[in-house]
């Protein structure tokens, strides 16, 4: 069977920097695949090439046998590829459900005059859109927050709303750029369960960029490792873990933690907070918080 998405010899340069160097990539339908690698490895650039935001200097990308390069981002979305962003890019001053409705734009299929005339077709279609939007919010677990402004949602909800918005365009391929960034382990796990359900029930294909190794190894059918714009390894998660190139990169990335439980001398304190109270209107958000950070130590909240 031909792969759903196939990229051949993609090269993308920014001035003197080669972000992607002749990278080949393919993705089979119904799979969950991950792209991993250190920061600056070219992972997001790869996404931007797939979604038409960047045009590479060389190479070809095809989706279901159709060439993607040279198409605009909205045309690519209409073909069935949709994405989320690493730094959440919701429409902050619109409600959660309106965000999802914008995601459906390519599937609306109403003419300008039908909107002006409020034809019966418009009425039926608009109602169907709202129903579908509510359903998708239910899928990502935000059904009861439909009418809240996107910018007022907590961080984890914003990430899930981005997913819901992307689902709005009824994609065949979903590109998720660090979907669990900033989530707790529990939130990340439930998100991964959701992704697995989506591939199972809706026949979606998912491509992830992810730093959370536990997530990657658990959920992926296929892992690709990028480093300095080159593909240095790929394969099943278990095989990639054994690959010497990968383990070298990953071990180099994690520095040792400083010893815990060392009490800082008074003189070393760089930042000190004593009895901090914060009120938002009537909400007492911080109630007498005190802490100090000493020089040369890492502290956690």
């Amino acid at each position, binding site marked *: 069977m031909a792969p759903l998405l196939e990229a051949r010899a993609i090269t993308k340069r920014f001035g003197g920097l080669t972000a992607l160097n002749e990278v080949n990539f393919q993705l089979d339908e119904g799979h969950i695949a991950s792209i991993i690698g250190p920061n600056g490895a070219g992972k997001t650039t790869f996404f931007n090439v797939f979604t038409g935001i960047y045009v590479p200097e060389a190479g070809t990308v095809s989706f279901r046998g159709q060439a993607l390069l040279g198409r605009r981002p909205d045309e690519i979305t209409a073909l069935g590829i949709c994405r989320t962003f690493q730094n959440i*890019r919701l429409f902050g001053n619109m409600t959660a459900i309106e965000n999802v409705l914008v995601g459906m*734009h390519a599937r609306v299929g109403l003419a300008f005059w039908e*909107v002006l005339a409020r034809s019966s077709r418009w009425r039926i279609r608009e109602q169907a859109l709202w129903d579908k939007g509510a359903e998708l919010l239910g899928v990502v677990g935000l059904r009861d927050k439909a009418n809240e402004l996107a910018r007022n949602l907590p961080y984890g909800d914003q990430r899930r709303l981005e997913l819901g*918005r992307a689902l709005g365009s009824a994609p065949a391929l979903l590109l998720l750029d660090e979907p669990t960034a900033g989530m707790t382990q529990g939130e990340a796990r439930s998100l991964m369960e959701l992704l697995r359900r989506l591939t199972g029930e809706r026949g979606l294909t998912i491509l992830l960029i992810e730093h959370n190794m536990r997530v990657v190894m658990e959920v992926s059918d296929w892992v690709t490792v990028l480093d300095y714009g080159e593909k240095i390894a790929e394969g099943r998660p278990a095989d990639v873990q054994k690959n010497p190139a990968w383990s070298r990169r990953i071990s180099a990335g994690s520095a040792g933690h400083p010893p815990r439980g060392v009490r800082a001398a008074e003189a070393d304190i760089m930042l000190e907070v004593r009895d901090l109270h914060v009120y938002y209107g009537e909400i007492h958000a911080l109630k007498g918080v005190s802490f100090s950070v000493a020089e040369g130590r890492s502290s956690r909240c």
Partner: protein
Amino acid sequence: MTAVTRAVRAWLDRPLLATVTVTGLLLATAFGVSYVPRSIVLFMLFQASIFTLYLARMPAWVKGVLTAGTLGVLMPVLGSINAYYLEIAIQVGIFAALALGLNIVVGLAGLLDLGYVAFFAVGAYSWAIVGSPQANLIFGGSAFPLPPWWFFVFLFVAVAVAAGAGILLGLPVLRLHGDYLAIVTLGFGEVIRVLANNLDKPINFTNGPKGITPISRPPIFFEPLLRALGVDAGPVAIYPLYLYFLVLLIVGATILVNRRLENSHIGRAWEAIREDQTAAQAMGVPLVRMKLLAFACGASFAGAVGVLFAAKQVFINPESFTFMESIGVLAMIILGGMGSIPGAILGAAVVTVLNLQVLKGLSLWLNELRNAGVSIFGFNLADLPTQLEPAKYERMVFGLILVLMMIFRPQGILPAKRRVRELEDG
């Protein structure tokens, strides 16, 4: 201050009480105006009670009846007592339609347009040229002015021509946003004005700075009806009322179109572009098409009111379409609240009334005091320099209001409300 607004709100939130209060206010102020027709304060109280009508919570049909009664009966009656009030109402209407058009471009799609008045000019000149003998200079012969009923055709022609001009402006600025877009649109506005100023040679299209006159007014097609009803009124009495109702019709149409667009996938796409255009495009919103549509829709309203403006003024020249007009319309929607339909209308009303009534009224009052030789604290007002005239400080007062507004209420007087939609349990 907040305590007062809260009390007023609480009062107006009870339907029956609100209906009685608002009806009473409207009738009392209208009666007051008819009794003392020259009192600016009373007329402004009348306007304020129209605003409370908007704020009050009451059944939709009651509100509809009261609005129709106020705008359709009370206002024309007051206008026939003091014609100047009708003039103000017409001006408010013209600017409300302009503000609603600009609201689509700036408020919804977030494309800062500083040359909006250009489309107003395009509409006005399209009727002015063919609705006056001016077109004979271009085409020769003596076929022009066109018969007055063409006015109605040109309302629609101007919509198309202005929408075309909107697309023409839109094309080169598609890749720009923010400051760059603002500068290009500013330039476009000036280009149109300078063209109007200089297109009297080699072919005389616009008659240059001298302007075009006389421009045909819409025909009084209902004259037989009036005669049958036994109303004997000359065109001098009829036209202000006639134009007033035409403006009302146009504003009504713009509100309708605005609302329908706003509550549709088109409006949502515009707002998405305003919030984050890269994300919007990645979600499948075709940027080029939607931006051009925003420019075209916004411009088309201005085109239609332009035709009406030309007919109302009978004379137009490039002076009516300066950069300050664009800024004025922009200020209206900033004052009222970006992206908010009631805000745009209120902004238009506040700015127009401020210019035409408050400041002019203060000037007149000061002059009267000066002429009467009144003295305050031993200072004779007759010694005041004649330059001190509030009407001359129009822009300053205006600027001050905007500065204060930005500091204390940047979202505008009536900010856009998110529509909350009840969802079925699924």
